[in-house]
C-alpha cells in the first residue's frame, strides 16, 4: 500500500526531552500502569458519586427527622472515608508511576498539562479536609453545619475528575503546544486542558461513577434483601442507590452516542479498532461479537448489521467511516483487545440500563420495589458487572490510543523508562494489589455485617453542642 494513502499526521512528532529512544519494556510498563488504574478508578467512582448519595440521605434526615436516614448516611460516610483513604494511596501510586514508568513523557510534556494536576491536587486536598470533618463531625457539629460540610466534598469530587479527565482528553487530542525541530515549545496550559474532547469524557466518566457506585451499593443491599433483610433501613438504601444508578444509566445512553461520534471525528483509527473496521468505506456495517482477523482484514463469526456503524458514528447510514487502513500497521492499536473491551462495555451498559428501567417503571407505577427475586439477583450481579464495564471502557480508550502516549505526537515506547527490573516491580505490585483487594473486601464485608447504629431522635446533634 503506498504511503500516500495514509492520513498525514496532524502535528510533528517530538524527540523527547530525555532522548529520542525509550526503554525496551513499554508493554510491562503499560500493564503496570493499567493495573494501578484498574485499582484506582473504581475508588474514584465512589469519590464522585457516593458523597452526593450520602448527602441526599442526610437531607432526607434533616427534612423528616427520621433517624433511619441518619443511621444510613452515617454508615455510608464511614465507608466513603475508608475508600477515600485507600484512594489516597492508590492515587499516590499513580502519580509516582507517571515518573517511574514514563519519565520521558513527563520530562517532555508535564509542563504542558501539569497545571491540570495542580488544580486536581487542590480539589483532592479540599476533599480530604472536608471528608474528615464530615465523618468525624457526626454529632459534634450542628445538624445544618454538618450537612453543609458535605457540600464541598461533592463539589471537589467533581472538579478533581474534571482536571484529570482534562489531561486524559489532552493525551487523546493534544493541543496547546508547538513542535519545532522535535522540541516542544510555546506551551499553553489552559488551551491544553480545555480540549474539545473533555466534554464527553467528563460526562461519560461522571455518569459511570454514579452507575458503578449505585449498582455496587445496591448489590450489597439486594443481597441482604434476598436473605430477608427488608426493613426500612435496607429499603431506603436500595431505593436511593437504584434511583441514582437508573437515572445515570439512562443518561449514559445519550452520552455514549455523543462520545462515539466524537471519537469518530477526532480519533477515527480508534473507532475503527472499536469496530474492527479494516477498510475505509461508506455505509459501514456494525458487527456484534466475533474475532478480528488481521490477515483477512475482517471480523469473523460476528453478526453484521449493514450500515449501522455509519448510522451510529455519523447519524447517516451512508456516511464514510475511516478504517484501520488509513494508517500504516505500526500505527494501529491491538484491535481485538480494544474491540472486545468496547463491546463488553456497551453490552453490559445496555443490560444495566434494563435493570434500571425495571426499577424506574415499577417505582413510577406502584411506588414500591419490584417483587421478583430475579430482580434482586440481577442487582447483585449488576455491581461487579458495572465494574467490568468501567474497566473495559478505560481499556478501550487507553489501548485504543496505542501506539501513542500523546496521540500522533509521542510514542509510548519512547516515553518509557530505561531503568531495569520493571518485571520485578510489576510482580511485586500484583502481589501488593491482590493483598489490598483482599483487605478492602474483608473490610466491606465486616462493615456490611455490623448492625446499623441506633440513632436516637433529637439526641446530641443539636445546636447546643456547638457552644
Amino acid at each position: 500500500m503506498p504511503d500516500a494513502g495514509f492520513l498525514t499526521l496532524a502535528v510533528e512528532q517530538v524527540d523527547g526531552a530525555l532522548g529520542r529512544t525509550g526503554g525496551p519494556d513499554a508493554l510491562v510498563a503499560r500493564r503496570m500502569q493499567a493495573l494501578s488504574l484498574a485499582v484506582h478508578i473504581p475508588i474514584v467512582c465512589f469519590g464522585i458519586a457516593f458523597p452526593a448519595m450520602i448527602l441526599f440521605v442526610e437531607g432526607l434526615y434533616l427534612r423528616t427527622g427520621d433517624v433511619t436516614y441518619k443511621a444510613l448516611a452515617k454508615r455510608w460516610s464511614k465507608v466513603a472515608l475508608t475508600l477515600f483513604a485507600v484512594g489516597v494511596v492508590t492515587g499516590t501510586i499513580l502519580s509516582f508511576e507517571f515518573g517511574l514508568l514514563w519519565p520521558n513523557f513527563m520530562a517532555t510534556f508535564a509542563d504542558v498539562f501539569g497545571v491540570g494536576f495542580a488544580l486536581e491536587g487542590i480539589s483532592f486536598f479540599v476533599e480530604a479536609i472536608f471528608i474528615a470533618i464530615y465523618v468525624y463531625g457526626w454529632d459534634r457539629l450542628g445538624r445544618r453545619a454538618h450537612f453543609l460540610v458535605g457540600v464541598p466534598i461533592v463539589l471537589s469530587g467533581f472538579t478533581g475528575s474534571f482536571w484529570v479527565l482534562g489531561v486524559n482528553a489532552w493525551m487523546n487530542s493534544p493541543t496547546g503546544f508547538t513542535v519545532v525541530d522535535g522540541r516542544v515549545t510555546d506551551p499553553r496550559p489552559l488551551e491544553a486542558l480545555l480540549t474539545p474532547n473533555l466534554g464527553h469524557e467528563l460526562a461519560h466518566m461522571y455518569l459511570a461513577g454514579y452507575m458503578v457506585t449505585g449498582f455496587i451499593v445496591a448489590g450489597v443491599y439486594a443481597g441482604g434483601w434476598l436473605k430477608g433483610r427488608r426493613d426500612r433501613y435496607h429499603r431506603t438504601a436500595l431505593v436511593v442507590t437504584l434511583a441514582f444508578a437508573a437515572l445515570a444509566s439512562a443518561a449514559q445512553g445519550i452520552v455514549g452516542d455523543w462520545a462515539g461520534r466524537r471519537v469518530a471525528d477526532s480519533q477515527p483509527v480508534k473507532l475503527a479498532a472499536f469496530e474492527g473496521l479494516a477498510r475505509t468505506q461508506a455505509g459501514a456495517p456494525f458487527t456484534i461479537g466475533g474475532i478480528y482477523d488481521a490477515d483477512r482484514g475482517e471480523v469473523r463469526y460476528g453478526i453484521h448489521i449493514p450500515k449501522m456503524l455509519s448510522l451510529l458514528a455519523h447519524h447517516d447510514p451512508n456516511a464514510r467511516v475511516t478504517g484501520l487502513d488509513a494508517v500504516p500497521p505500526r500505527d494501529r492499536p491491538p484491535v481485538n483487545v480494544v474491540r472486545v473491551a468496547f463491546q463488553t462495555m456497551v453490552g453490559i451498559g445496555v443490560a444495566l440500563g434494563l435493570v434500571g428501567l425495571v426499577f424506574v417503571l415499577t417505582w413510577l407505577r406502584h411506588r414500591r420495589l419490584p417483587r421478583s427475586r430475579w430482580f434482586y439477583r440481577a442487582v447483585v450481579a449488576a455491581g461487579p458487572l458495572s465494574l467490568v464495564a468501567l474497566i473495559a471502557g478505560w481499556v478501550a480508550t487507553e489501548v485504543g490510543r496505542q501506539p501513542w502516549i500523546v496521540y500522533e505526537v509521542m510514542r509510548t515506547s519512547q516515553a518509557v523508562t530505561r531503568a531495569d527490573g520493571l518485571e520485578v516491580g510489576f510482580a511485586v505490585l500484583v502481589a501488593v494489589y491482590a493483598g489490598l483487594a483482599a483487605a478492602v473486601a474483608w473490610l466491606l464485608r465486616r462493615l456490611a455485617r455490623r448492625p446499623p447504629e441506633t440513632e436516637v431522635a433529637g439526641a446530641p446533634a443539636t445546636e447546643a453542642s456547638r457552644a
Partner: protein
Amino acid sequence: MAEVCLALVVVGITAYAVLGGADYGAGFWDLTAGGAQRGGRIRGMVQRSMSPVWEANHVWLIFVLVVVWTAFPVAFGSVFSTLAIPLFLAALGIIFRGTAFALRGHAATIREARVLGATFALSSVLVPFSFGAALGGVASGRVPVGNAAGDMVDSWLNPTSLLIGVLAVLTGAYLAAVFLADDSVRAEQPDLARAFRARALGAGAVTGLVAVGGLAVLRSDARALFDGLTSGGGLVLVLISAAAGAVTLALVWTGRFGPARFSAAAAVAAVTVGWVLAQRPYVLPPRLTLDAAAADDTVLTTLVAGLGIGALVLLPSLWYLYRLVLQGRLDQDYEPLDQRFRPLSASDERDAGDAGRAGGAA
C-alpha cells in the same frame, strides 16, 4: 517565576516533612510501643491523633510532586528514572501504611489489630527512609539529566543517602513525640504525656547528635553540599535549625508542648531551606541549574495563578480543619488500642509476650 515555584516546592517539602513526617514518626512509636497490653495505651493515642488529619497531611506529598513535574519537568523525569528503586519502595510503603492504618480502625480482634499495626508501623519507617535516601542522591549530585542516566543503586545506597534517610526517620519520630505529648495533655492522659515527653527528649537528642556527626559524612561524601551548608546562607539556616531544635528540647523539658510544636516545625523548615540554599543554583547538582530546569514562563505563571486561586479555597478549609482539631471538636474518645476488644484471654497473654519480644528485636 522559577524562584517562586522553587519556594512552593520548599513549602510543600517542609509541610510534608513536618506533618507527614510526624505521622510516620507516630508509626515509629507504634512499632516500638511493646506488647499488645503494654503498648495499647500508646497505640490508642497514635490512632486517635492521626485519624482525622493524616490524609490531609499526606496530600502535601502530591502537592510537591505536581509542582515539581509541572515547573521542573526534566528534573522530575531524571529523578524518577534514576531513583526508581527508593521511590518505588516509598510508594509501596505508602500503600501499606495507609491501608493498614485505615483498616486497623475496623479490626475486631487483637490479633487482626496486631497484624495491621505491625504493617502500619514497619512501613512508617520504610517511607521516610526511602524519601530521605532519594533526597540524599539528589543532594550529593548523583542524579544526572536523562532517562535513568544515573547509577540505579549507588544513587541511593551511599553515605549521604543513608545519613539523610536515617535523619528523616529520627526527625519524624522526634516531631511525633512532641505532637503526641501535646495531644496527651489535651486528652487528659498525664502518664502518656510523660511517656511521650521522655521519647521526645530522647529522639531529639539522638537526632541532634546524628545531624552533627553527619556533617563529617557529608564532608567526605558530598563536599559541595557540605561547603554550602557550612558557609553563607546555608550556614545561617543550619544554625537557626540547631537553635530551634535546642529551644524545642527546652520547651519539652519544661512541659510546654504547645509552643514546642511550632519550634520543632521551624527546625525542620530551616534545614530544608538551608539545603536548597546550599545547592544553589542547582536543582540537580552538579549541572542542572534552576533556570535551565524551569519550564516556560507561561506555564509557571499559570501554575502559580492556579495554585493562588486554589489557595483561596484551600487555606480557609485547612484553617477550619486545624481549628476544629485543635479545639478538640473532632476528638475521638481516647481508648487504649487493646481494650477495644474482648477481655484478654490466657492465649492472648502468650501472644502479647511474643509480640513484645518481636517488637524488642525490631
